[in-house]
C-alpha cells in the first residue's frame, strides 16, 4: 500500500516535471515581443480574413453570376448582366437609389441639427438634469425592431392615438404609411432614433469647450450666436465630422426600420438598397442579383472610409 503510493507519487512528480518543462519552455518561447504579438493579434485577424474579407470578395464574384438559393453551387458567370438588369429597372433607379439618397440626405442633417440643439439644451443647468440626460438616449438604446413596433402601432390608421388626437383636434386622419407619406414617416422615425445619438455624443464634446474663453467673449460683448459659431463649433468640429460620417454610413445602409414598418411598400415607395437587396436575394432567391444591389453601397462607403482615414490621420 505504502509502496504503491510512493511509486504513484514518483510517477506523478515525473509527469509534473515534464509538464513544467513543457510549460516553461512554451512560456519562454512566447516571451518574445514578435511571437507573443502575432499570437495575440492572430485570432482577430483570422476572423476578419475568413468572415469579412472572404465574404466581401465572394460577394463581388456572386454579383457576376446567376446564383440562386435553390442551386447555391451552380451559379454561372454572366458578367455584368445583373448590373445592367438592375439599372434597366425603373423600380431600382427611381425608387431604390433615389430613396436611399433622399433618406440619407434628408435625415442626417436633421439628426445633426436637432442633436446639436438637444445637446445645448441638456448642457444647461436645470432640475433633474442627469435623469433627463439618461432618459433621452432610450430611443437609441431600445432594440430597433422592437421600437419599430411602437411606431407601427402609432401609425395604425384606425385605432392609432396619433390619428385619434388629430381627429379630435379637428384635423383629418393621416395615412402615415400610405403611398404618399410612407417615405417621410420612415425618415421621421429614423430621425427619432438617431437624434439622441448625436445629442449624447455632442454633449460629451461640449464638456471640452473651454468655459473661460466663452466667458471672456461674453464680457467682450459677443452674443450667443457669435460665441457658438466662433468658439463652440471650432472646438467640437472633429467630433461633428466623425460622428456625421458614421451616421451617413449607418443611415444609407438602413434596412431594419424600413423593413419592419413597410417592407419596402406600399408600391415599392419606401424601398432602399438594403431592403431591395434583401427582397431580391432572400425572398426572391436571386443571390447574384442581391449581391449586385448590395455592392451599390460600395462606392459611397469607400469614399467615406477614405475621407475618415485621411481626417483621423490629419488630426493625430
Amino acid at each position, binding site marked *: 500500500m505504502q509502496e504503491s503510493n510512493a511509486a504513484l507519487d514518483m510517477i506523478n512528480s515525473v509527469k509534473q516535471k515534464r509538464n513544467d518543462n513543457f510549460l516553461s519552455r512554451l512560456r519562454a518561447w*512566447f*516571451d*518574445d*515581443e*514578435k511571437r*507573443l*504579438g502575432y499570437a*495575440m*493579434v492572430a*485570432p*482577430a*485577424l483570422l*476572423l*476578419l480574413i475568413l*468572415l*469579412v474579407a*472572404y*465574404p*466581401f470578395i465572394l*460577394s463581388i464574384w456572386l454579383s457576376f453570376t446567376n446564383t440562386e438559393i435553390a442551386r*447555391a453551387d451552380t451559379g454561372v458567370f454572366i458578367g455584368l448582366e445583373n448590373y445592367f438588369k438592375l439599372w434597366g429597372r425603373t423600380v431600382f433607379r427611381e425608387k431604390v437609389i433615389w430613396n436611399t439618397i433622399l433618406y440619407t440626405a434628408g435625415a442626417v442633417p436633421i439628426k445633426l441639427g436637432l442633436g446639436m440643439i*438637444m445637446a445645448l439644451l441638456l448642457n444647461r443647468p*436645470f432640475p433633474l438634469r442627469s435623469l*433627463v440626460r439618461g432618459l*433621452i*438616449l432610450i*430611443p437609441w*438604446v*431600445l*432594440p430597433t*425592431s*422592437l*421600437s*419599430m*413596433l*411602437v411606431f407601427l402601432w*402609432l401609425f395604425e390608421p384606425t*385605432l392609432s*392615438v396619433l390619428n*385619434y388626437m388629430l381627429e379630435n383636434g379637428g384635423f383629418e386622419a393621416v395615412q402615415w404609411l400610405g403611398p404618399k407619406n410612407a417615405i417621410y414617416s420612415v425618415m421621421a422615425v429614423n430621425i*427619432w432614433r438617431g*437624434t439622441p*445619438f448625436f445629442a*449624447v*455624443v455632442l454633449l460629451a*464634446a461640449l464638456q471640452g469647450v473651454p468655459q473661460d474663453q466663452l466667458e471672456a467673449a461674453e464680457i467682450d460683448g459677443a452674443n450667443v450666436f457669435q460665441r457658438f459659431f466662433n468658439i463652440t463649433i471650432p472646438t467640437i468640429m472633429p*467630433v461633428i465630422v466623425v460622428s456625421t460620417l*458614421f451616421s451617413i*454610413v449607418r443611415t444609407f*445602409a438602413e*434596412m431594419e426600420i424600413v*423593413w419592419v414598418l413597410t417592407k419596402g411598400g406600399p408600391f415599392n415607395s419606401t424601398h432602399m438598397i*438594403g431592403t431591395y*437587396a434583401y427582397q431580391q*436575394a*432572400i425572398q426572391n432567391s436571386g443571390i447574384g442579383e442581391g*449581391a449586385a444591389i448590395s455592392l451599390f*453601397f*460600395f462606392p459611397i*462607403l469607400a469614399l467615406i472610409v477614405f475621407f475618415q482615414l485621411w481626417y483621423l490621420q490629419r488630426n493625430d
Partner: protein
Amino acid sequence: MAITNLQQDRRVQHGIWSIIAYILLALVLILWLFPVFWMLMTAFKPNAEITTNAAPLAILEPTLDNFTYLFETTYFVKWIGNSLIVAVSTTIFSVVVGTLAAYSLVRYNLVGKSVMGMGIFVTYLLPQTLLFIPMAFVIQNLGLYDNLFALIVVYPTMMVPFCTWLMMGYFRAIPLDMEESARVDGATHWQAFYKVTLPLAKAGIISAAIFTFTLSWSEYLYALVLVPSVEAQTIPIGVPNALSSGDVFVWGSLMGAALLGSLPVVLVYAFFMRYFVSGMMAGAVKG
C-alpha cells in the same frame, strides 16, 4: 450707469433664453419619450380598451393578459433564452479577442501594424447590409444555416473590430513605465500585459462588454437572414414576425413583448450609463 444697464440687459436676455430653453426641452422630451410611454401604456391595457379607443391616454382596467398571451401562445421565453446565449457568447468572445489584438497592435512593433489597425477600422465601418448575402452563402456552406450557432460565429465579425478599436484607445492612454519596471523585476511580456496593464484597462473592458452585449442583443439583419425557424430565433426577429403575421396585429401583446424584450438592454444601460456613453464616444468618434 452704462455698466448696470449692460448687466440688466444680460440678465433679461438670460431670462428669455432660459424660458425658450425650458419650452424646447419640454417639447423634446414629449416628442422623444412619447413612443416609449405609449409602449408602456398599451402593454397593460385590456384588448377591449385598445380596440375601442375609449380613453387613449388612460388605462381604465390595467391587466397582465397581454403578457400571459405572450408566454402561453408564443416562443417568447425561448427567444429570450436564444438572445441571451447569442449575446453573452458574442460578448465574451469579442471582448477577449479584441482586447488581445488591441494590446498587441498598440504595444508591439509588428510588421504591418498600421495596415492591420486600418483594416480593423474599415471592417468596423462596414454595414451588415453590404455583407449579409455572401455571409448567408458562407454559413450555408459551413452547415450552420438555421442554427443559433451561426449568429455566434457571425456577430464577432462586427464586434471584434469594435472592441479592438475601443481598447486600442484605452491601451494607448496607459503609460509604459509600470510595465517596464515589472519587466525589470523579471515578469514576462505576457505577465506585464495580464497582471499590470490589463487591470488598468478595466473601464474599457466594461464599456466594450456592455456595448457588445447591447448590439448583439438588438441585431436584426443577420438574425433575419441566417435563422429562419421560429424556435431558433432571437427576440428582435421572433417578436415582430410571430405577433404580426398577416394583417392581424395583437397590439397589447406586441407592446408587452417590445417592453420585456427591451428590458435587458435598458437595464444594462441604466446601471452602466457612464461606461455606455464612453463606449459610444470611442465607437463613433475616435473611430
